[in-house]
C-alpha cells in the first residue's frame, strides 16, 4: 500500500526500516540524534533505536568515515551522514584510500558494507560549500558504488539497497527535492541499484539526468512534447556503475543524446557517458551528443547560482542543439578551424598588449 510523503520522509522511512530489519545497521553523523539532522532526515530515529545505534559523532568527517570502516570490520553496517556535500573532503582520504580499497586489499576477506549519505547539489540559496556536486570524484574511484535517487520512491528503495549492499555506496540526496511529495510503496522488495530507468518514452532524443535534474528533465520533455518533439527521459539512478547499455539502447532508437547535470563539465559524468556512447553507439548517432552542465567554476554565491545551474530553458536549448533546431550556438561556426592552446595564448597576449 502506498503512502504520500516527502522525499526526505521517504529516506527516513528507508533508514527506519533498515534499522528495524538488521541489528547491525548503525547511523552515524553530526547532529543526527536529538536534532534529527540539519535536514531532519534522521528525525525520531535516535528516540526509537537509542544512542548506541544512532550516534551523534564529534565534528570530524574523516573520523566519522574512519570509525565506520572499523565498525564494518567488526561486522556492523554503518550508515554515515555527511552534513553537506562540501564537507565531505576531510573524509576523502578515508573514502578513497581505505573504504573503496579494503575489499580488494584483503582479497575479499574484509567487505565494507558502509553507506555514505551526502545531500547533493544547489538551488536552495545556501552559503559556500553547501551546494556542491562532488560525484565525479567518487565515480573515478574503483571499489565504490554511487547512486542518486530522483523521487521519494527511489529515495526509499535506493537507501535500502545501499545499506543491504556488501559494497561501499555513496548515496547522493538531491537536497532541493527533500520537500517534494510522492506516493511511496513501503512494502516493496529491495530492488537492484544499478539499472537505469526510462521514465518517459520518446523517439526523437534521449535526455539523461540523475538526482535533482530528473524532475527538470521531465518538465523539459513535457514542454518539448507541446512542440511535437518526443523526448525519452532516462533516470540513471546509479552513477557507478553506469547503465550505459540502457542509454545506448535508447540512443539507437533516437539517434540523439543530451546529458544534464549540475556538476561542472570537465571530467564529469556527462563526459564519461558521452564518450561511452560515442565509442559504442557511434553508428546510430544522428548528431553530436550534447552536455548541459554547471560551469567549470567554483560553485557561485547563491544570488548567481541560477546562472550556473542547468534549468528548464538550458536543457531545452541543449535539446534544440541535439535536434538541429534553432539554438544559442547557431552563430558559432562549427566548421571554423579549431583554436589551439598556443593560438589562444597568443590571442590573449595580444589582447593584453592592446589594453
Amino acid at each position: 500500500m502506498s503512502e504520500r510523503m516527502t522525499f526526505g520522509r521517504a529516506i527516513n522511512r528507508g533508514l527506519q526500516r533498515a534499522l528495524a530489519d538488521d541489528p547491525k545497521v548503525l547511523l552515524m553523523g553530526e547532529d543526527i540524534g536529538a536534532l534529527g539532522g540539519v535536514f531532519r532526515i534522521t528525525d525520531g530515529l535516535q528516540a526509537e533505536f537509542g544512542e548506541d545505534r544512532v550516534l551523534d559523532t564529534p565534528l570530524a568527517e574523516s573520523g566519522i568515515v574512519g570509525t565506520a570502516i572499523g565498525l564494518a570490520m567488526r561486522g556492523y553496517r554503518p550508515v554515515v551522514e555527511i552534513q553537506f556535500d562540501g564537507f565531505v573532503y576531510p573524509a576523502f582520504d578515508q573514502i578513497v584510500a581505505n573504504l573503496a580499497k579494503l575489499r580488494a586489499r584483503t582479497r575479499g576477506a574484509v567487505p565494507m558494507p558502509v553507506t555514505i549519505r551526502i545531500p547533493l547539489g544547489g538551488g536552495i540559496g545556501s552559503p559556500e560549500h553547501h551546494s556542491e556536486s562532488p560525484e565525479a570524484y567518487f565515480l573515478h574511484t574503483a571499489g565504490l558504488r554511487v547512486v542518486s535517487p530522483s523521487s521519494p520512491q527511489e529515495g526509499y528503495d535506493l537507501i535500502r539497497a545501499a545499506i543491504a549492499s556488501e559494497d561501499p555506496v555513496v548515496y547522493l540526496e538531491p537536497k532541493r527535492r527533500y520537500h517534494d511529495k510522492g506516493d511511496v510503496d513501503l512494502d516493496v522488495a529491495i530492488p537492484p541499484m544499478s539499472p537505469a530507468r526510462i521514465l518517459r518514452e520518446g523517439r526523437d532524443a534521449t535526455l539523461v539526468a540523475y538526482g535533482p535534474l530528473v524532475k527538470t528533465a521531465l518538465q523539459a520533455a513535457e514542454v518539448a512534447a507541446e512542440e511535437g518533439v518526443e523526448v525519452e527521459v532516462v533516470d540513471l539512478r546509479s552513477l557507478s556503475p553506469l547503465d550505459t547499455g540502457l542509454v545506448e539502447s535508447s540512443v539507437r532508437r533516437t539517434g540523439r543524446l543530451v546529458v544534464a547535470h549540475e556538476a561542472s563539465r570537465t571530467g564529469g559524468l556527462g563526459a564519461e557517458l558521452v564518450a561511452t556512447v560515442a565509442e559504442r553507439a557511434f553508428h546510430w548517432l544522428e548528431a553530436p551528443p550534447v552536455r548541459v552542465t554547471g560551469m567549470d567554476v567554483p560553485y557561485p554565491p547563491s544570488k548567481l547560482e541560477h546562472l550556473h545551474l542547468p534549468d528548464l530553458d538550458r536543457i531545452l536549448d541543449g535539446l534544440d542543439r541535439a535536434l538541429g533546431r534553432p539554438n544559442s550556438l547557431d552563430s558559432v561556426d562549427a566548421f571554423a578551424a579549431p583554436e589551439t592552446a598556443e593560438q589562444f595564448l597568443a590571442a590573449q597576449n595580444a589582447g593584453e598588449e592592446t589594453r
Partner: protein
Amino acid sequence: MLQVLDAEGRRRPQPELDPWIEDVDADALAALYRQMAVVRRLDVEATHLQRQGELALWPPLLGQEAAQVGSAVALRPDDFVFPSYRENGVALLRGVPALDLLRVWRGSTFSSWDPNETRVATQQIIIGAQALHAVGYAMGVQRDQADVATIVYFGDGATSQGDVNEAMVFSASYQSPVVFFCQNNHWAISEPVRLQTRRSIADRPWGFGIPSMRVDGNDVLAVLAATRAAVERAADGGGPTFIEAVTYRMGPHTTADDPTRYRDDAELEAWKARDPLTRVEAHLRTLDVDVDAVLAQAQAEADELAAEVRRALEALEEDGADRLFDEIYAEPHQELERQRREHALYLQQFDDEEAGA
C-alpha cells in the same frame, strides 16, 4: 621515562610497572629474547632479499624489536591489532606467516592473510589512517559487549596526522577499549621527531583526556608491562590508553631510503649502545640461566625461519591476469566485467600468435 631493564641490563625497581611482570621469570625472559632474535633475523633476511631483488621494498624494524615483541606478547588471543607498515614483528608473533609478510613487500599482493583469523588488520600505508579503524572496531566491541581490546600501532610522524588526533577525540568521547601504541623511533623518513612535536609525544594525549605512559621502547619488560596495563584498562571499561615507546630506527625508513643524508653516525652509535637484545642478554647472565644455550637456540630458530622463507619465496608463483579484476566489488559490476572480457581478448591475441607460430 619508565624503564625496568637499563641499557646495561640492570633491573631497576619500577613500582608502576613491576606488578604487571611479576610472572616473567628467567625462562620467560629467555623466551622474549628468542622472539626478539627471530624477529630481528626475519627483518635482516628480508632486507637482504630486497637487495637481491626478491622483494620490491622492505621497511626495516631494526632496533624496534623490544617495542614490537613486548607489546605483541602482552595481547590476549582475541585482541585485535591495527598495524602500520612496519609492524612485521608484531604480525609474525600474532601468527601471520612470514612468507605472507614478504609477499606483500615483494609486490605480489596487498595482503595474504585473513584479518578475522589472525586478529591482525592488513598493514596500513596511509600514515595514521588505521587509528580511526581501531577506534571504530573498538566501538563495535563495546556494542557487542565483548572482552576484546584493540591496539593501534603508529610512529612519531603519525602523531601530526589529523586521523590520529581525531581517533583520540572519538575514543575519549566514547571511552572505547583502545591502546594507542606509538613507537617514537625518532625519524619520520628524514624528519626528526622535534618537527612533529615541541613536547614529548606522551604529553599530548592528556589534553584529550587519555592517560599516557612514556616507556623505554628498547626495554622489552617495560613495554610488556605498560601494554598489559593498557590492555587491562581497556578490557575493564576504562577506555583508551596511550603508550609512547621511545626507541630508535637503526636502519633506513625503507630499503629505498638513505639515512646518511640526514643523520649523524654518532646518534646511531649512541643508540646501538641501547640495543634491545644485548641488555636482555646481559641481564640473563646475572640469572641462573644457560645463556649460551638460549643464544644457540635463538640462532637456530632464526636460521630455520630465514631459510624457510627464502625457499618458499623462490618457489612462489605470481597471480595471473584474471586476478586483476577479482574482489574489487562484492556484487556484480557490469563495466568491470566488460573490461575483464576485453582485456582477456587482448591477451588472447598473443596466445593465438604463439599457437600460429
